[in-house]
């Protein structure tokens, strides 16, 4: 039951873009799964894994689309399980370590405040599969944003200790946000064709959302000038290899295994 057909025309630019979107969703979904049975309360276990499930669902469709547009016969499983670190195109924010609960929710706020306008814009992408995925994902991202916002406000405007820890978590992941709004030659071509969302239009929406939530949470906007980058070209954080090892080892150790 894959979207699109087998006669899809090869489009390497659109494939590369679908891969970026799919890797973002897949890798953050995998990160969130680390909270299974470790959350502060049962409801949070369920919530974080529900968010992970939404992301995984989007990732499957986007990786399938990337494979179709690539035209080399790779399917979603090949792309998820048989690539090595430098072949992944996720942004650094999506792979950043969970840290404590506050840091995970701070990261989710920064991600979801980006994905809501991203999916909204991509709902009118000229790639019909990306548009279809986005039309569903935007509704889900609104829930994710609402959830992250309520926790960041509760922790930030909570006790001295919860405030201190969520501010520290925010400082930890904040540097990875500038990469979300970088332009490169691929994006220039795809924005011109109406396939990709224009990062210049996403940035002010993101800043407004995040600024509003942090103000309500009595948290400071981090003032760092460090702007690490590299995820889109396959240069990842140290922890990424461990994430892939856990995600891929079964498929690689037992090719074709079913149960």
């Amino acid at each position, binding site marked *: *039951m*894959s*979207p699109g057909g087998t006669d899809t025309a090869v489009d390497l630019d659109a494939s590369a873009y679908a891969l970026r979107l799919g890797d973002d969703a897949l890798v953050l979904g995998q990160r969130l799964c680390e909270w299974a049975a470790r959350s502060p309360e049962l*409801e949070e276990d*369920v*919530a974080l894994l*529900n*968010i992970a*499930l*939404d*992301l*995984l*669902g*989007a990732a*499957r*469709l986007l990786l399938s689309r990337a494979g179709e547009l690539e035209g080399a016969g790779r399917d979603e499983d090949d792309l998820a399980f048989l690539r090595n670190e430098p072949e992944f195109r996720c942004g650094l924010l999506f792979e950043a370590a969970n840290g404590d609960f506050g840091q995970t929710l701070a990261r989710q706020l920064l991600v979801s405040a980006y994905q*809501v*306008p991203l999916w*909204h814009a991509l*709902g009118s992408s000229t790639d*019909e*599969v990306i*548009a*279809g*995925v986005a*039309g*569903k*994902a*935007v*509704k*889900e991202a*609104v*829930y994710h*944003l*609402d*959830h992250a*916002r309520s926790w960041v406000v509760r922790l930030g405007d909570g006790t001295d200790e919860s405030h201190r820890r969520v501010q520290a978590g925010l400082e930890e992941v904040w540097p990875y946000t500038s990469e979300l709004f970088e332009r490169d030659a691929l994006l220039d071509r795809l924005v011109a064709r109406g396939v990709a969302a224009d990062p210049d239009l996403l940035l002010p929406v993101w800043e407004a959302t995040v600024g509003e939530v942090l103000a309500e949470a009595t948290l400071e906007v981090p003032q760092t000038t460090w702007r690490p980058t590299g995820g889109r070209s396959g240069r990842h954080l140290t922890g990424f290899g461990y994430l892939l090892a856990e995600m891929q080892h079964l498929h690689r150790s037992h090719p074709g295994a079913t149960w």
Partner: protein
Amino acid sequence: MTAPPAPPTAAQVRTVLAEVTDPEIPVITIDELGILRGVDVQGGHVVVTITPTYSGCPAMQEIEADVRSALSGRGWDDVEVRSVLSPAWTTDWMSDAGREKLRAYGIAPPERRPAGPVLVALGRPRLVCPQCGSADTEELTRFASTSCKSLWRCRSCREPFDHFKAH
């Protein structure tokens, strides 16, 4: 040898599929839920189109298998099940009969919502307890036993209940 069954009409297929229920909420059919999007018969070839509720809904494969099984039971095996994403599923497609069945089953049905794109989070809806009818209810968690539901509690009868989220 028995003769192969005559090819069905689309109406016959719809009648059979009207009995296929959601694997997670067995009181409501996939038609009432709004995820059965189309039936087309060309010659003996049956094409059933369904759409997922949420992107990661793990019930989709189960639903496909249930559709095939229901049609196979009538001898119709030349069946293709297609999954389409667009237009995106919305709880506005849920029928009134479906909503009433949810309520009777103990799940608060989704409220109807205004048309248009969703850019800001919705305020918390005011829900009526499907067990006792009280409006004195509160949300416990936005994410519950399945992607499509949230968990609530009634402050009058003290019972928890699921809410099918407006989506």
